């Protein structure tokens, strides 16, 4: 692909290709990144952007292709090579040692000699200089565990600069930040650009790209599908390019017919062992026959809300009422009892919670219901009944391959999700909690899953959907609640909401 810019390329990739087993993650990607610019790489989850950058940083080796730094081909066998060539990476999950001080983390791998004393002194001086130059100030003697997430990210950036990087890759840097911290980060990135540093920003948040980047590269299914100047494009166009077609998530659905309240939370709070307030006085009501969507930047209490509502964690304060049963700190409940009340739960992270990778699909198809007839009587499992049940679920939800004896890990993400959804819906729950219904699921399965959720609603199920995908919330929900900082900060009726309205609410928090 012809590069848009005539300026000298700091980084150039030619024909990069990478597969993981059956997954072709990166398909012959060629691109050039001009020096002293901020370039965004956008794409959906699984589009290959993180893999591509990991190859550039020497974490993965490409199966084919070439990397050029300052027009010279280089071999990126390990991060050490990348660092030597002036590339630094700030990972989505910070590479910081929690028990170390800022200074210790800073010098790790660049100690400047076999003894620490000298290196520490030099690092202290350098830290002061970097702090002044870029406005990046952190207490060098603070322990990482005591710092806020934004401060930790600053340490990561300092680490990279300390190693003399001229090229900086940031992987989803705003995923864990508050809006204020994000603004602060963008100021830092701009001041880096002003001093000639090349910045590459991996994200799936289009708004941010438009706000900070000069250019944007769109990836889809492992390939680069477009390059644009941010001044010459729009979020709408980028979104279309990312998905590959006009987003048409508008479901044909009838207006909701509200029934009685099935789940009600009053002033629900959750405080963890360190005293961090994860949920802060959440009030919410879920009625039969409606889908309520919870929108918000991930990490604002959605995960914890699902945990409390499904009985995995007891609330610290407040009250929860599910199908007539009252649950509060004095009367806790476990997920099994919740199920018995008629609540089903499709967890956010299917691999970590929703299934057991080593189990056969048939075993996964009764997870959480292993004590229930007809799969089990007097604690004895009825294996033929379990197999029959699984085959039935697979048929109804079109799970492929339709082999109950196959290991759960051998199904694709979409098929795993359909199996879990089938399991949770098959017992006709009164309340259904769904976390990230379509994360890492292919387009075809997304439509199927959405339709099934609406069908369930239409027969009177009360459904709560938590998703970081605004389009998904917009197309599914009858009512939308916006969550931030562990509290519900607003409610919008679905027909009055659009991405701009929700985005503003989320940002204003």
């Amino acid at each position: 692909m012809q590069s848009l810019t005539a300026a000298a390329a700091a980084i150039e990739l030619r024909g990069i290709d990478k597969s993981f087993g059956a997954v072709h993650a990166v398909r012959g990607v060629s691109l050039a990144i001009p020096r002293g610019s901020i370039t965004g790489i956008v794409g959906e989850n699984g589009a290959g952007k993180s893999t591509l950058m990991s190859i550039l940083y020497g974490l993965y080796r490409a199966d084919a292709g070439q990397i050029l730094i300052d027009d010279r081909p280089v071999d990126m066998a390990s991060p050490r090579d990348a660092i030597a060539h002036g590339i630094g990476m700030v990972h989505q999950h910070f590479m910081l040692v929690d028990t170390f001080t800022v200074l210790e983390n800073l010098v790790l791998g660049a100690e400047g000699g076999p003894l620490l004393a000298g290196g520490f002194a030099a690092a202290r001086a350098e830290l002061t200089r970097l702090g002044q130059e870029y406005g990046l100030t952190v207490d060098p003697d603070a322990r990482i565990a005591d710092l806020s997430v934004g401060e930790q990210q600053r340490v990561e950036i300092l680490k990279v600069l300390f190693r003399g990087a001229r090229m900086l890759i940031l992987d989803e840097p705003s995923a864990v930040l508050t809006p204020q911290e994000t603004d602060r980060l963008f100021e830092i990135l701009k001041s880096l650009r002003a001093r000639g540093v090349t910045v590459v920003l991996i994200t799936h948040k289009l708004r941010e790209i438009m706000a900070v980047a000069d250019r944007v590269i769109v990836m889809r299914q492992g390939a680069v599908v477009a390059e644009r100047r941010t001044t010459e494009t729009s979020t709408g166009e980028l979104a279309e390019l990312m998905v590959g077609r006009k987003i048409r998530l508008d479901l044909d659905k009838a207006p909701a017919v509200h029934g009685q309240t099935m789940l009600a939370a009053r002033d629900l709070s959750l405080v963890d062992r360190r005293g961090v307030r994860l949920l802060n006085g959440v009030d919410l009501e879920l009625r039969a026959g409606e889908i309520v969507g919870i929108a918000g930047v991930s990490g604002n209490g959605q995960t914890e809300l699902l945990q409390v509502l499904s009985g995995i964690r007891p609330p610290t304060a407040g009250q929860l009422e599910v199908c007539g049963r009252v649950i509060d700190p004095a009367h806790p409940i476990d997920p099994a009892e919740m199920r018995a009340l008629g609540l089903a739960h499709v967890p956010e992270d299917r691999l970590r919670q929703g299934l057991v990778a080593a189990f056969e699909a048939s075993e996964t198809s009764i997870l959480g219901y292993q004590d229930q007839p007809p799969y089990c009587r007097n604690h004895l499992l009825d294996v033929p009944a379990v197999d029959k049940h699984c085959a039935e679920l697979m048929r109804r939800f079109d799970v492929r391959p339709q082999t109950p004896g196959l290991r759960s890990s051998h199904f694709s993400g979409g098929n795993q999700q359909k199996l879990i959804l089938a399991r949770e819906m098959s017992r006709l729950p009164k309340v259904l909690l769904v976390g990230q219904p379509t994360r890492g699921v292919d387009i075809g399965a997304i439509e199927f899953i959405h339709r099934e959720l609406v069908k369930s609603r239409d027969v009177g199920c009360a459904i709560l959907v938590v998703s970081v995908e605004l389009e998904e919330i917009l197309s599914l929900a009858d009512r939308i609640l916006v969550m931030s900082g562990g509290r519900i900060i607003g409610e919008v009726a679905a027909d009055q909401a659009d991405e701009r309205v929700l985005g503003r609410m989320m940002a204003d928090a």
Partner: protein
Amino acid sequence: MEETLTFVTLTLAATLRVATPLVLCAMGGLFSEKSGIIDVGLEGKMLMAAFFAAATASLTGSAWAGVVAAIVAAEALALLHGFACITHRGNQVVSGIALNILAAGLTVVLGTAWFARGGQTPPLNDGERLKPIFFPVAGDNVLVYVALLSVPFTWWLIARTRFGLRLRAVGEMPLAVDAAGVSVAWLRYRAVLLCGLFSGLAGAYLSIAQNAGFSRDMTAGQGFIALAAIIFGKWRPFPAFGACLVFGLLDAVAIRLQGVKVPGIGEVPVQLIQALPYLLTLFLLAGFIGNAVAPKAAGVPYEKEH
């Protein structure tokens, strides 16, 4: 008065004698554990080293050859542990247990085949042993001093050097070390090799300094006591050293208290005193006395996605 003084002196000397292999072993184990490689195989390494020290000393007539052989034997097991746990990302506890059992069997098999004394090595004469340097009564051979010096050395290496910083980091978060362009595997191998060196010296001490020859299972759980000392010392050299001294003292006292009625308490069962290191560690682990936090990545093989 003089009698009491003698008793105290003798008890202290005995404590140091008993504690020496514990200290050496604990310092070795500390390196391994700090790097994130759990080592329940200290016992096996020490046993193997003790056997090869005595066997070599007996065959060559040189105590120093025995020390070298002990180190080589312990390093061989250490490398095997590293190969299984670092290169092949095997389960560290399983590997440690395997090496303990292997050493328990192999020392007797080889000992019987070579010396035909039911697993023992021939008794060593004075020339084949490490002898006391200053105080014959106290048994202050060179390894006692090595053990005493190993503590500040370990502390310095871990707290004050580049190697130590990386070692601590790799035990807490290997990903950060890898991302910094430093080899996780090579760091851990070096830690495991240091562990082999010290546990080798501990083994040599048992068979050619403290005793005059090898006898089957002569480590008798001391490797595990060293492990307990590491936990008790919360993975820090000086506190671990302190724990070794306490455990050594208990052992020295146990021998002297055998059959003696302590005024006001009566006869203290020797078995209770012997089990005290384990009981104390259990209380510590249960969180009744402070809190022992292991290096975060301990026991977790580092797997790089490729």
